[in-house]
């Protein structure tokens, strides 16, 4: 039944396509049926070859079936002409399979109108020679050209262009005339130009290079380079000049793509830094508490996400100090399962906030006057928590599946915008906006700012500073938990997850200026961009470093590890930056000497 509907749909599409293109009176199915019946191999090749440029879902299906030996000639008992059929479906106990007429895709029926099931060995198979298979491949190469989906068309055209086969030119030119989509038109022009680079006469090649210079796509760079080399050896000055023009255009485009790509990556790296540092900007920046366990708060959030995910999925068993704690799952799948992240975000915030409040009540509140010692005590906490994670969740990373909606990208003018990075930036903006709302528009935010600006005065006005401390620390920790939920989507979740971010996040807060959220935002994006710029361009600077006396070769060697060297340079820059502005980008002015 389902098969019938499927075929019906295929037929409908076929009919529509035919109406749209309006070329052949004969459907593709009929052509193939005719080919199957054709006597000689040569005739078959010609008939199949006539399909070139046709786009019809039936063509790849039937030709593939042909190559798989699934096409047969059915000779009806009453001596009528043989009918070409395709056997589909799995064989049943008797070895029979459903037979479908190739000519119209309808099931083969007997005289009574009942569907016939046939045994392959009883039938005459439709043969195929290597020459025929080549002809089929030529047809199949072109099928996607007519696909209704522009992305498929572009991909097919790209393959054709890069193969530089001159015999595809007419088809591409025909297509160019009927094509309406601008992107596909550009791709067609590119492909035609690429093929024409192989042309015999100079004028065509120069014209092709002109088109390529106009289009300046990254993909054509290698071909233009090859054409230039060839022309140089052949001594064709004009072609060389045209190729150089094209190369300049492509290089200009490449540096533009690199620049925007780098800026975009910088923004997303900056957002990651921002999200992990925001919690710290609250606890360290506003409260002055050095929370070395901040990284573990992030890990708490990430593990909460992991638990919520399993709660939505198959459930999980957690060994808990000798006991094993089984968490049953809801066993959801598909869209409902992918929605776990929406539940995980508040859960991560709450879990980390609860741990944070516990930490504040039990340890940190005794150390408000001793910042260096709060650093040490919270480091102790961080050690304990890391080991607890290891004991509970294992020393290895746990699997948090990234939702399917994060794996894709937008490509605008050959600059790739990955959705996960877009998500990162969006999440960062949301959190900053949320914090801004909390700090400026809620009574709690007002109290927080009051206590942080002048604790004694706030206490005199009747603010319960102890309680505000607790809530502020809870908010900071909760933000770390959010960061954890967020990091679980783009990286690994393991016991030392937090450790990899703690140094960076302290840097961001210190550079931004303590006690200043806006400074944190600016410094996160600044550090992120500089980091990405260095990573992108360091390798190209490496040769220049050889000139540095004494350590030239050493620097050059290091610059090849652009990720690491870039990071080191960023840290160096931060140290130098603090020479210039010791209190960060935004300074909280105060008349107090110890400020």
């Amino acid at each position, binding site marked *: 039944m389902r098969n019938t509907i499927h075929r019906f749909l295929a037929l409908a599409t076929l009919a529509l396509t035919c109406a749209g293109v309006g070329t052949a009176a004969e459907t593709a199915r009929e052509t193939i049926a005719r080919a199957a019946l054709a006597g000689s191999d040569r005739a078959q090749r010609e008939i199949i070859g006539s399909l070139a440029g046709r786009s019809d879902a039936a063509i790849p299906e039937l030709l593939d079936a042909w190559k798989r030996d699934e096409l047969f000639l059915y000779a009806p008992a009453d001596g009528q002409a043989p009918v070409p059929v395709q056997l589909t479906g799995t064989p049943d106990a008797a070895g029979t399979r459903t037979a479908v007429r190739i000519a119209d895709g309808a099931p083969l029926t007997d005289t009574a109108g009942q569907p016939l099931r046939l045994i392959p060995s009883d039938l005459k198979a439709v043969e195929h020679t290597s020459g025929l298979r080549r002809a089929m491949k030529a047809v199949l190469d072109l099928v996607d050209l007519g696909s209704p989906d522009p992305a498929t068309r572009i991909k097919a055209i790209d393959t054709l262009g890069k193969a530089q086969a001159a015999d595809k030119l007419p088809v591409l030119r025909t297509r160019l005339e009927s094509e309406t989509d601008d992107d596909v038109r550009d791709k067609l022009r590119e492909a035609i130009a690429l093929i024409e680079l192989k042309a015999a006469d100079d004028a065509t090649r120069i014209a092709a290079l002109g088109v390529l210079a106009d289009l300046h796509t990254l993909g054509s760079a290698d071909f233009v380079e090859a054409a230039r080399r060839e022309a140089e050896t052949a001594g064709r000055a004009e072609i060389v000049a045209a190729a150089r023009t094209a190369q300049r255009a492509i290089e200009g485009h490449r540096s533009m793509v690199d620049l925007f790509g780098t800026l975009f990556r910088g923004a997303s790296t900056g957002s990651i830094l921002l999200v992990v540092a925001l919690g710290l900007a609250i606890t360290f920046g506003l409260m002055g508490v050095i929370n070395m366990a901040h990284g573990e708060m992030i890990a708490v959030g990430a593990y909460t996400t992991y638990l919520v995910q399993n709660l939505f999925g198959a459930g999980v068993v957690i060994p808990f100090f000798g006991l094993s704690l089984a968490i049953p799952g809801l066993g959801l799948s598909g869209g409902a399962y992918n929605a776990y992240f929406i539940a995980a975000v508040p859960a991560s915030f709450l879990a980390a906030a609860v741990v944070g409040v516990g930490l504040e009540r039990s340890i940190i509140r005794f150390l408000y006057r001793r910042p*260096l010692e709060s*650093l*040490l*005590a919270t480091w*102790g906490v961080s050690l304990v928590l890391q080991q607890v994670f290891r004991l509970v969740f294992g020393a290895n990373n746990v699997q948090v599946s990234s939702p399917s909606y994060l794996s894709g990208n937008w490509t605008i003018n050959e600059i790739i915008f990955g959705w996960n990075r877009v998500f990162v930036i969006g999440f960062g903006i949301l959190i900053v906006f949320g914090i801004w709302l909390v700090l400026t528009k809620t009574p709690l935010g007002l109290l927080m700012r009051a206590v942080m600006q002048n604790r004694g005065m706030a206490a005199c006005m009747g603010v319960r500073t102890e309680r505000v401390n607790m809530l502020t620390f809870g908010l900071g920790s909760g933000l770390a938990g959010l960061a954890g939920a967020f990091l679980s989507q783009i990286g690994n979740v393991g016991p030392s997850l937090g450790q990899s971010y703690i*140094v960076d996040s302290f840097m961001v807060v*210190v550079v931004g200026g303590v006690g200043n959220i806006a400074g944190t935002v600016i410094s996160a994006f600044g550090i992120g961009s500089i980091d990405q710029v260095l990573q992108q361009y360091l390798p190209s600077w490496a040769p220049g470093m050889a000139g540095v006396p004494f350590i030239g070769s050493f620097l050059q*060697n290091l610059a090849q590890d652009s990720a690491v060297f870039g990071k080191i340079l960023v*840290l160096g820059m931060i*140290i130098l930056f603090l020479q210039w502005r010791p209190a960060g980008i935004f300074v909280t002015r105060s008349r107090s000497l110890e400020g």
Partner: protein
Amino acid sequence: MTDTTSPSTSVNRTRFRAELSAVGVIAVLLLVVFPLLNAQGVVSNFTLGVWGKYLCYALLALSVDMLWGYTGLLSLGQALFFSLGGYMHGMYLMRMIGDLGQYRMPIPDFLVFLGWKTLPAFWEPFDSFAFAMVMVVLVPGVLSFLFGYLAFRSRIKGVYFSILTQALTYAAMIMFFRNNLLMGGNNGFTDFKFILGHSLVDPVEGPKTMRGLFIATGVVLLLVYGLCRWLSTTKFGLVQRAIRDGENRVLFSGYAAASFKLFIFVLCALIASVGGALYVPLAGIINPEEMKPEKSLEAVVWVAVGGRGTLVGPILGAVGVNWLKSWATRAFPDLWLIFLGALFILVVLFLPGGLVSLPSRLAPLWKRLRGPSAGTEAASPATKG
């Protein structure tokens, strides 16, 4: 913790004498009796090596304490200087392997592995022990001078200083993890064979060399202890503690606090570096793990547990905590970190003066137990840092 170190009052003078005699006894035990017992076979070679490492850690702890306990600068980068010293000495030891490595090549194995045929230029001078020792002093010295100059000039202090030193260490660590640095990558240096012509691995000569290294480490520790003790009695030591207790007052009194801090920062980098240089032949390995931010923090734990602002405390803490660690990692491998973390929290919260302050804090309690009328006040109030 304000006055424990200046031997000006008579009480302090007696305490000072007591400390000196205790140090003398321990020094004789460590430097003479312990190696003798080892020569007799009573103390195993393994134990001797482990205690040698503890002594190197004590040097590291002293460097942390001179900065933190005496000057109020919590440096989280001392493990970097320790490792740098270790690496510089390690380069010499790597050259002494000669062609006895796995690949039987005249250059260190990891270079062969990276495809090098000849020695990189900067490795060549390390054939000389004297050059390596100069580099042990020079490399951490120059680095700490540059960093300290920049940091103190712009008056980076307190927590910021801690965070920046940690960032410096972190940067160095990721750099040393790379093979491209040509310093052994994440495996670091190991498989040492000879030091100054004496074998480290030979079954007959090896233990003797180790004993020599142990004694050398002990002597260096004693000398550094003496240096720090002497420094604390000078006017310099007084300014140092004044900076800790009220830097602005020192500034207003006309002292260039930054220069004092820079001097002590470089000195402490050198102490740590020498500790690292002694550590490498005793441990037989140096790799970037030693530069992890945790390592610096661990050294701070030793000082905090032993008692900062004293000179015996850090040594006691380094040896004690490490001894505890080697026991606990074997007895409770899963729980050791929880134990260490908890120890840290408890010491910070309840015993800010560390183990050495324990007698003075227990004294009133003891008095109260002896006679209820004698001690009226509870333990001395918690010190403030």
